[in-house]
């Protein structure tokens, strides 16, 4: 008996020591939001390779990656911040950092993780290694649209206050804040352009977006695409559009119109409207395929079973897909050959070949929402 146990232990040890080394470049996570769990996925063989439980309330969860792409930082709605080891498929550290959170960001140097909170309103800055709290910046208002910017800065908007704040966390225990007031009514989300130069906040309370040149924050914010609604009554919006991950395709940005079934195309050189493209419904995410040839878009209720693909050359919809009911998110593999799309009500993640639109795989997942691949580790604003 004793010998059998010894043999078993030896076998286990041998098993451990021969676990194959692997990279993380083709890994990612899918949020299974109702279960408080993430599914670890691998895009080479298009399979689930593990699951990590115990992450709390993951409605509106978001994920950023450590700069070595080994760890995922998961921001939960309930204020949970969890550092997950992708290779070990386990929780490395977890803290409950607020009562109600909306997302987070990782600094340019990878040393800091910032969580954006609704209650109490503000951001909290943590050591990315230990999740030790280093400092906080209270805002007295709900923080939305947090993104990292060059210079270890975090940029975000305040929904009720209509402000954009730029927090320089170069000295993480004593961050300094630049406040831009009166940027527009009810900013609901924001993002940083891939080059890290501009921050753009979408406005719910008026037709337009707020633009900040992060090379020149002293110049303040200015409105772009002002009055895009042309005075028409907006349609009801059953889900807020999301701007992080929104599409920068070449010289164009593809931005959601609020209360209109259109995507607005903003020219990044002249900052004027280049086009507007009619769509099936209220867009939620528009994501450019790496390379910027096409932009894939999902929709709010009641059109949330469709994904439309816009050709950037033609500036029109060239394909419509039906990946499943309640499509919540989409993400491309780093070089854009696959699109991963989550369908909440079909409990599935569909993987498409972006060249042929053929479905390559369908993974089972419990009420999947966000899909986050490790290539984000190397991208500013993600």
């Amino acid at each position, binding site marked *: 008996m004793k010998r059998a146990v010894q043999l078993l232990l030896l076998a286990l040890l041998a098993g451990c020591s021969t676990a194959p080394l692997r990279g993380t470049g083709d890994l990612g996570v899918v949020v299974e*939001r*109702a279960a408080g769990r993430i599914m670890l996925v691998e895009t080479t063989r298009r399979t689930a390779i593990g699951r990590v439980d115990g992450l709390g*309330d*993951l*409605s*509106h969860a978001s994920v950023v990656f450590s700069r070595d792409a080994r760890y995922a930082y998961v921001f939960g*709605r*309930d204020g949970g911040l969890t550092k997950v080891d992708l290779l070990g498929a386990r929780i490395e550290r977890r803290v409950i950092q607020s009562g*109600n959170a*909306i997302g987070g960001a990782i600094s340019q140097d990878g040393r800091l993780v910032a969580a954006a909170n*609704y*209650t109490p309103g503000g951001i909290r800055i943590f050591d990315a290694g230990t999740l030790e709290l280093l400092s906080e910046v209270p805002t007295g208002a*709900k923080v*939305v649209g947090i993104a990292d910017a060059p210079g270890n800065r975090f940029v975000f908007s305040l*929904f009720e206050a209509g402000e954009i704040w730029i927090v320089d966390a170069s000295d993480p225990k004593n961050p300094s804040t630049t406040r831009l007031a009166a940027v527009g009514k*009810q900013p*609901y989300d924001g993002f940083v352009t891939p080059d890290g130069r501009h921050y753009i906040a979408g406005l*719910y*309370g008026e037709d337009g977006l707020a633009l900040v040149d992060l090379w020149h924050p002293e110049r303040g914010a200015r409105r772009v695409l002002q009055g895009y609604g042309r005075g028409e009554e907006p349609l*009801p*919006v*059953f*889900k*807020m559009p999301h701007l992080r991950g929104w599409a920068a395709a070449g010289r164009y940005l593809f931005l959601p119109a609020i209360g209109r079934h259109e995507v607005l195309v903003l020219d990044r050189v002249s900052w004027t409207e280049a086009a507007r493209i009619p769509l099936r419904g209220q867009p939620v995410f528009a994501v450019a395929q790496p390379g910027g040839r096409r932009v894939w878009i999902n929709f709010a*209720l*009641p059109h949330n079973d469709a994904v439309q693909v816009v050709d950037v050359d033609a500036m029109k919809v060239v394909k419509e897909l039906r990946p499943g009911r*309640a499509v919540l998110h989409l993400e491309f593999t780093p070089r854009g050959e696959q699109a991963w799309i989550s369908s*909440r009500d079909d409990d599935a993640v569909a993987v498409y070949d972006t060249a042929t639109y053929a479905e390559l795989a369908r993974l089972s997942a419990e*009420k999947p929402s966000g899909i986050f691949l490790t290539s984000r580790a190397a991208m500013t604003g993600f």
Partner: protein
Amino acid sequence: MHRVAWCLALLLAAAAAAAQPAPARRAELIELVRHDCGACHGLTLKGGLGPALEPAALAAMSPEQLGFIILHGRRGTPMPPWRDHLSESEARWIADALKQGLPK
């Protein structure tokens, strides 16, 4: 004549309140509240961009007011009108369910 109209209105209101959605539809409505309303109000209804929808947070509001907001939305806020997706009795059923605590 006035009296008759009153009685009729009361009867109709009572009928609307009594018209409970069928069990299968109720399950759909609970899913809708948790996941679609939950996008702004939180999956656990503890609030997000929209306010908390737990019974304590709704104490000051009558089921009628709540049902009205669900159907017609709230101007100046992101709360949209759900009248194209819900009947009056369904909105009222959701309002009552929220006031009592949404069933699991």
